[in-house]
């Protein structure tokens, strides 16, 4: 059973997965509570364009995806601040824009089939030593920055008008939140895959929200859900020989269902007593 740990690439995948399990719900929590979780999917598709740029230009995937996604964040936030378009349509615009750029560049790229599937669906084989260092450092950076700005992000998320009225730099905080989301997605591509990376930011949080606790407690529960999903998902990926992204996200959905059932049972008991 524990032979999984004898493979170096699996050790790397497990460490990378655990970093993602801690970072993705941490920033995802703020997107979910703001009902802005669609941004995760948009950023993921833009990061796919970044991967396409890297395959086309022969550069490294994660740093290139990071640059492209962060540049897009500034564009999205600028449009959002103008308030001339509904926020969800801005996300749709950038989602399809990112996908279109990816399709065009991949069509022009000679080595298009080399690793695209791995980036789309996630593969534990793609995590190199360099990737692991990058994932760990950037993941730690996101985690620490969220802790520093936790109170500010909370206030902006629960009531943007009140935060602005009290003098908080709401525009800058919104941009920072989106940039941290972009970084999280760029570092999660290898393990979870571009198409499913948004799920790791959202589903553990949704599972935690079923317990109807406070903000901090919801975050703690989402971390537990994230870690359990990654561990179970990677084991499943290894022993069943399936894509790691799908395996991890299916485990997260399983936890969400369990949490929903536990929550409804708990509430039914409380209402009976």
């Amino acid at each position, binding site marked *: 059973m524990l032979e999984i740990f004898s493979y170096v690439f699996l050790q790397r995948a497990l460490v990378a997965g655990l970093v993602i399990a801690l970072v993705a719900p941490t920033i995802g929590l703020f997107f979910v509570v703001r009902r802005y979780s669609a941004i995760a999917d948009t950023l993921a598709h833009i990061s796919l364009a970044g991967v396409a740029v890297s395959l086309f230009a022969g550069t490294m995937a994660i740093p290139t995806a990071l640059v492209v996604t962060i540049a897009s964040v500034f564009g999205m936030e600028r449009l959002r601040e103008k308030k001339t378009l509904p926020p969800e349509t801005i996300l749709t615009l950038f989602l399809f824009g990112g996908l279109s750029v990816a399709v065009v560049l991949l069509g022009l790229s000679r080595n298009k089939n080399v690793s695209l599937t791995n980036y789309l669906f996630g593969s534990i084989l793609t995590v190199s030593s360099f990737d692991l260092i990058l994932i760990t450092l950037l993941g730690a950076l996101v985690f620490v920055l969220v802790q520093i700005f936790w109170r500010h992000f909370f206030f902006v*998320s629960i009531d*943007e008008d009140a935060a602005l009225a009290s003098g908080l730099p709401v525009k800058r905080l919104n941009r920072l939140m989106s940039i941290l989301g972009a970084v999280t997605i760029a570092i999660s591509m290898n393990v979870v895959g571009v198409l499913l990376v948004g799920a790791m930011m959202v589903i553990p949080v949704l599972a935690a929200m079923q317990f109807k606790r406070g903000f901090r407690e919801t975050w703690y529960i989402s971390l537990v859900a994230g870690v359990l999903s990654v561990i179970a998902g990677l084991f499943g990926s290894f022993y069943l020989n399936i894509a790691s992204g799908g395996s991890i996200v299916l485990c997260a959905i399983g936890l969400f269902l369990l949490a929903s059932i536990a929550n409804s049972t708990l509430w039914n008991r409380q209402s009976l007593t």
Partner: protein
Amino acid sequence: MSLNKTNSIISVSNLTYQTHGADVISDFSFEIPKGAYVGIIGPNGGGKTTLLRLILGLIKPSKGTIQILGRDISDSSVRKCIGYVAQRGGNLDPLFPATVEEVVKSGRTPRSGLLNSYGKEDEDAVQKVMNHLGIQKLAKRPLSRLSGGERQKVLLARAMAGEPKILCLDEPVDGLDPLSRTEFYELLRHIHGEGVTILFVSHDVHTIAKEADSAICLKHDLVCHGAEACHIGKGDMHDLYHADRMDILKHHGE
């Protein structure tokens, strides 16, 4: 109480706000002294909420200036002395996973530094304001399990946790039952007694007459009595108490 005093906490000068090419507020000037209890009244579409949002710095004026304690409202540091309570729970999402205590504590965020976490001073201030407003027993309750009245009290507590000099409220009792309304205004009166300047929007002239010491009256044609605010003293409002609210607005507008 006259609104034009030199000891002003809010100074509005030649304020104009336009949207879609039309004036919502036109060349409007007034001053609010420290410690005033002012109601903003007017019919629907009269620009009450717009005026409040301009004073809060949530929207920018087309022309004119707004100063808080002698500093322009665009200076974000001056806004730390303003507390804000929105209409019907504002943007508070009932599904937002937060407890009452967490929400109230967030009112301390603008006062604390960037790298500091909440300290003992913050904890004490939060406990004090929750005790003061009688919501201590709700501290650990999630937002999803609050009534409308309780939610408004939580918003008031959050605003007060920041120890504001000015408290701005937009139709704060809209949607509440009569008992909750009375209770809420009693709390406001108590807060005012502690020296906080209160500015609140209401479309109900009876409420303004009963609660506020003075009023800013916005006309339905979106122009505020020439270049001046309409200052109605409390005595005036009691005289007008039994009149139809539109008559009152017309009376003071013409």
